[in-house]
């Protein structure tokens, strides 16, 4: 992750602030920065979303392609994640510098979605054992301003909400050869139900307390972070510790509870925003990248 150099005195200042529940920008320990979200920004994808949290800017594109189902899950489609850390974000990502971070994030996303309730993968199946829809989720890091995982998970959820998978019919010939027919109406698609898609909440331990949505300055002062993936109902699908410091079990329980609370609020807010955007329909003015 792009690390910001801080002096000892600055780190001490940040830590004492967190202790008093007043962070550098005036937020409390459980407040998020202002989040801006827009879906359907990339026209040649099945679904896309762009999320901006402070200085963190993420673009996610989802493309639906047909393929063969996995052997162990023959009647389900699946998701493939790829994370690209663009050199725009920081010069450290130039060339192959961003690969490590990219694989780490992609693996986390695989773990988060690795359960049967997040996404109804059975709806993505066309013919068991032969054809299914594979959703290629591509994440692009445009700017790194701290709290990457949260922003990425919000963007992935919004992009999946926006994804439209075309409806197909399988016709059987006289000889038994199967033909796949796309429906004539381009707007005849399957919309995914993202109610149970989890979001990742990152809790960073600074001093004796933990904060939600750490900026890159605060990440430089943290000892360790806990990534918790929470659904809108409050179920935790996975959690993972990152960072070199140690966390004791009592604080892990506290952090899980905070993650649960904050996660539910985040999901509610996100759902309302996505529904508002959908209700604007075709009249919505797209802001895009030059707005």
């Amino acid at each position, binding site marked *: 992750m792009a690390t910001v*150099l801080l002096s000892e*005195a600055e780190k001490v200042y940040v830590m004492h602030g967190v202790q008093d529940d007043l962070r550098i*920008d005036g937020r409390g320990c459980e407040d998020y920065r202002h989040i801006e979200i*827009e879906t359907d920004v990339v026209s040649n994808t099945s679904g896309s979303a762009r999320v901006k949290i402070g200085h963190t800017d993420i673009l996610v594109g989802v493309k639906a392609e047909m393929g063969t189902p996995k052997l162990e899950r023959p009647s389900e489609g699946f998701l493939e994640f790829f994370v690209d850390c663009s050199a725009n974000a920081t010069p450290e990502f130039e060339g192959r510098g961003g690969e490590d971070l990219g694989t780490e994030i992609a693996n986390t996303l695989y773990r988060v979605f690795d359960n049967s309730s997040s996404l109804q993968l059975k709806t993505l199946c066309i013919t068991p054992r032969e054809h299914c829809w594979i959703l290629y989720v591509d994440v692009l890091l445009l700017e790194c301003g701290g709290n990457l995982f949260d922003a990425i998970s919000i963007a992935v959820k919004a992009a999946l909400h926006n994804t439209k998978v075309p409806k197909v019919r399988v016709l059987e010939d006289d000889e038994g050869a199967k033909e796949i027919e796309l429906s004539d109406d381009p707007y005849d698609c399957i919309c995914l139900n993202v109610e149970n898609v989890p979001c990742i909440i990152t809790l960073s331990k600074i001093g004796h307390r933990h904060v939600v949505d750490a900026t890159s300055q605060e990440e430089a002062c943290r000892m360790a972070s806990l990534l918790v993936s929470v659904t809108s109902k409050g179920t935790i699908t996975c959690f993972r510790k990152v960072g070199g410091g140690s966390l004791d079990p009592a604080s892990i329980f506290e952090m899980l509870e905070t993650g649960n609370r904050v996660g539910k609020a985040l999901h*509610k807010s996100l759902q309302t925003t996505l529904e508002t955007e959908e209700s604007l329909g075709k009249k919505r003015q797209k802001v895009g990248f030059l707005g």
Partner: protein
Amino acid sequence: MAVDIRLATARKRVPLPADVGKHLVSPGDTITTDTGFMRGHGTYMEDEKLIASVAGAVERVNKLICVKPLQTRYNGEVGDVVVGRITEVQQKRWKVETNSRLDSVLLLSSVNLPGGELRRRSAEDELMMRDYLQEGDLISAEVQAVFSDGALSLHTRSLKYGKLGQGTVVQVSPSLVKRRKTHFHNLPCGAAIILGNNGYIWIYPIMEQKDDEAGGFVTNLEPVPLSDREVISRLRNCIIALNVHKMLLYDTSVLYCYESSLHQQIKDILKPEIMEEIVMETRQRLIDQEG
């Protein structure tokens, strides 16, 4: 705990006040076809036409035409006050990052020794360099000279310059910091700021100075009281608001912005509509004060 998610909205165009008769150009625009002018910074001659090479406002002094860029890396002048971060400790000098094209240089002979001694720097002083300034430390310094390649040579040969203690740094565009007689301000609201010409603004609490024997070699790491912390966070958010709206930064504008924001909660200042409201009020007050 607050999670504020919004849809992206296009940036509003702020109408320029009518009396500002600036001639704005972008790279490639023809400034004039009159050959009688001398070309200054930001312009070049092609086909008997004077063309701008940067985006900014055209300035004319008698026969000299130059273009002052709106957004640029910091170009140092002798006598400027800068706030920089140490990136490297080399033999007999430190490399300081000051948001310019090249890292600035702080020579060992340009800093004050502990206790204020005046003597030739010896080999022991060289070995003790890291005890004074390490990688990541923040300093305030003055530009002593500009090397031929554009790198700045800094010095801290005064009691008001030196290593900075607890506080927070805000990065703004260098062209927004107004050149004034003094850049060190003790604001009446209870905090002090250093407006570095290079765009780094340092906000710190006014702490009681004990015996100044050490002179910057020992930093005060005591916790800062909550009231001071609130003032510092508020100032930080106000400065970011002024930066986003491209307003000139000097002690009066920062103070007016702080006073306009007092009825808002600190963390709300960064919301787009509240930012706009506060900056409009500040702008109005500044115009009234001038008139």
